[in-house]
Structures are given as structure tokens and as C-alpha cells.
């Protein structure tokens, strides 16, 4: 099962800031699940989109050595509905990071208009979970997940380009 709530990155400044985007589509199951007959992007999945953006920012800051899990949603608010056809942008900034975990602040844009705020708190789970055991391998940063950042870094253009003038067909 693919659990991608972001489609790609537009910007990535290691340890500081990450910007990811997501296109909302009529063909996605989840837009039809919240209010049957009234397709809308569920806010909880926008929180998850920010969690993935910020989580990768936090993970990359320590070269993905830590198992970074979302531990607390400090603040989440959205000021408008998001519907099929809309384009979301998640701008995550690192507030603080240390051995125990990290805190991020984030703004959510819909069609380039600021409409939400999501502040999160992540835990570096191996350092933190009072005696609980976790698998050795990093189950958080899977290959599928990492491909999002890899695509951005390799220069593969997932972000929209400026419209080109159509060439004459004659």
C-alpha cells in the first residue's frame, strides 16, 4: 500500500526548510470518504502531508540514522476547504532538533494562498521509548518514501514548469 501524502519536493534546505506539494484529484478515494457526495480533502490527511514533509526534513538532518516518528500535533488549523483540482504546498521549517527529537512549524498553501498552519513534534524513537524495543532496520524511511527526496535531488522535474509558448505546427 502506498502511503504518499505529498507528490514531490519544490525546495529542500538541509536542517532548515522543506517545501513539498500535493495535487488533489477527483480520482482519489479519500476525497469521497469524508462527506459522501461532497468531495473534499480530509484535513487529517493534510496534517499527514505536513508530517511527511517535516518528517523527511527532520530525518535528513541526521542522515536518516534515526527512526523519526510523529509524536504530537502541537497545532493544526485550516481556514478553508480543499477540493479536487486544488494544489497544496507544505512549507515546513525546523524549529529545534536534538537527540531526543525535533519540533517543526509549518504553513499550508492552497493554490498559493496561505490557508493553514501545522506545528509538529517528532520523537527519535530509539532514544526515547523507555525500554520498548523497535526493529533494527529503519522502518520509517522506506525506499518508497526516500524516492520522493531522491527525485528532487536528482533534478527530476516533478514541480510545474513555466508554460512554454506553443510551437507552430505548420
Amino acid at each position, binding site marked *: 500500500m502506498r502511503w504518499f501524502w505529498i507528490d514531490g519536493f519544490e525546495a529542500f534546505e538541509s536542517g532548515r526548510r522543506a517545501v513539498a506539494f500535493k495535487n488533489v484529484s477527483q480520482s482519489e478515494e479519500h476525497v469521497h470518504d469524508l462527506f459522501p457526495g461532497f468531495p473534499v480533502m480530509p484535513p487529517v490527511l493534510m496534517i499527514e502531508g505536513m508530517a511527511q514533509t517535516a518528517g523527511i526534513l527532520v530525518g535528513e538532518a541526521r542522515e536518516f540514522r534515526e527512526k523519526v516518528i510523529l509524536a*504530537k500535533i*502541537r497545532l493544526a488549523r485550516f481556514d478553508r476547504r480543499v477540493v479536487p483540482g486544488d494544489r497544496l504546498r507544505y512549507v515546513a521549517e525546523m524549529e529545534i532538533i536534538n537527540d*531526543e*527529537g525535533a519540533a517543526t512549524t509549518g504553513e499550508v498553501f492552497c493554490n498559493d494562498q496561505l490557508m493553514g498552519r501545522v506545528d509538529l513534534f517528532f*520523537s527519535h524513537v530509539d532514544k*526515547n521509548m*523507555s525500554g520498548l524495543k523497535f526493529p533494527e532496520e529503519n522502518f520509517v524511511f522506506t525506499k518508497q518514501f526516500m524516492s520522493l527526496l531522491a527525485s528532487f535531488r536528482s533534478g527530476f522535474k516533478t514541480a510545474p514548469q513555466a508554460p512554454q509558448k506553443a510551437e507552430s505546427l505548420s
Partner: protein
Amino acid sequence: MPMSREDIFRSVQETLVDALGVDDDEVSAEATLKGDLGAESIDFLDIVFRLEKSFSIKIPRGELFPDDVLSNPEYVENGKLTPTGLESLKAAMPFADFTKMEQDPDISKMPDLFTVDTLVRYVDSKINT
């Protein structure tokens, strides 16, 4: 930069309102973080992060919320702190009020050591020494 206890209290109060989603009138000096304000384990970590930021201090792991006392067999017996355990805890947490623990050193009552005032006194000791 020295701060008065009043100012520290107001800043700690604001931190707890943000971290725990409680109203400021619930955050009295004697309120316990867990019992009265509903703090859970992840909230303790969040509170440490926020205090570090608000007061520009570093809070080493285990300094504010010591995590090794309960696992030491010399310190705990039959669900109660031993005299050694109690002394060790008092040495580790000079900013906490041990009056109730001295009367009943039941380890299940340990979370009650962490009141708003405990945090205020801890911050005071860090910034005003």
C-alpha cells in the same frame, strides 16, 4: 539575564498553556503536570523543548525529569522509595518540594513531585545562578 520569580512563573504558565492546551487559570503554582494538567510522557519532552527555547537554557536529558531512579533496585522496595532512594532523588532534584514524599514515599505518587512550581524553581536555578 536575571528574571524575577513572577516573570518566570508567567512564562512557564504560557509554556504549559501552549504545550498542554489548558487555560491559564488552571495553571496554578501547585497544579501537578500529570494529575491536574493532564500531561502525558510526550508532553514532558515537548515542555523541555519549549522551556529551552523560552529561556535560552539547555536542559540535559534526565536533569529535570530524572528517568533512572525507578529502575535502580537500591532505591525502590515494595513500591516505596528506600531512604537511599529518597536522598538520591532529593539530591537530583533540589528544585522540587519533597514534603509529601517524605511522609509517604510511594513511587506511584512520584508524578505529583512535578508541579508548576517545580518547573519555576528549576528554571530559576538555571538562569539566576
